[in-house]
């Protein structure tokens, strides 16, 4: 039950456009006591169903800049492969430190950003 509640809370915050999935990962580490890698894996997979629906709706409404997709996705896939292989191979405590740095920057960004924007 705590898993569903943690997801629910993070989903509400993310749905309001705050922090994206970044907030779910520390919540999983603190409340469910999973490792950093598992928390990241859970966040990645749990993003897929709602994001698929969002992409479908945005596509139908013509909101996606299609001519930008090819360069972004091709280079993004290369980056994703490099990033993910590094994440699974890194020492969990080092990965935690890298993630903490990233979370710190994201937190600072949320404090100073002005517009309510929705992020995946």
């Amino acid at each position, binding site marked *: 039950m705590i898993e569903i509640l943690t997801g*629910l809370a993070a989903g509400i915050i993310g749905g309001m456009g705050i922090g994206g999935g970044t907030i779910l990962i520390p919540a999983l580490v603190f409340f469910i006591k999973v490792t950093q890698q598992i928390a990241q894996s859970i966040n*990645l*997979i749990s993003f897929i169903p709602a*994001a698929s629906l969002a992409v479908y709706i945005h596509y139908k409404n013509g909101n996606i800049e299609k001519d930008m997709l090819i360069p*972004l996705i091709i280079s993004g896939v290369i980056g994703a492969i490099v990033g993910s292989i590094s994440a699974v191979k890194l020492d969990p405590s080092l990965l935690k430190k890298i*993630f903490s740095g990233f979370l710190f920057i994201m937190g600072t960004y949320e404090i100073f950003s002005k517009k309510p924007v929705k992020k995946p």
Partner: protein
Amino acid sequence: MKPRGKISLWIMGFIAGIINGLCGSGGGTILVPSLVFLSKVRDHHAHATAIAVILPLTVISSFIYAKSGIIDMNITIKVTIGTVIGAYIGSKMLNKLPINILRKLFGIFMIIAAIRMVIK
């Protein structure tokens, strides 16, 4: 699109992919402002395009994590039920709450979480 604009798209995609794979989140969070500021995409279209880019990257990253044995399907399913419902509730609350105050509040939470993850 100008050639220079195109090169920046390749770089943006690559960085978003690395962050998303390495930190298990946040690719979209950095892609949205990059698209708005560097490529002059309208806010709403930037969000839609960012999700359309991050979705395939997340599928690939999830696959790499899972193949390395970094997966916990039991927790993932429970958390996902929570995040999907939560995201729906959050998006409905978007216009009813003082989002900019909440954004700063959660920004502070994220910074505290980041510090606590390093100092235990």
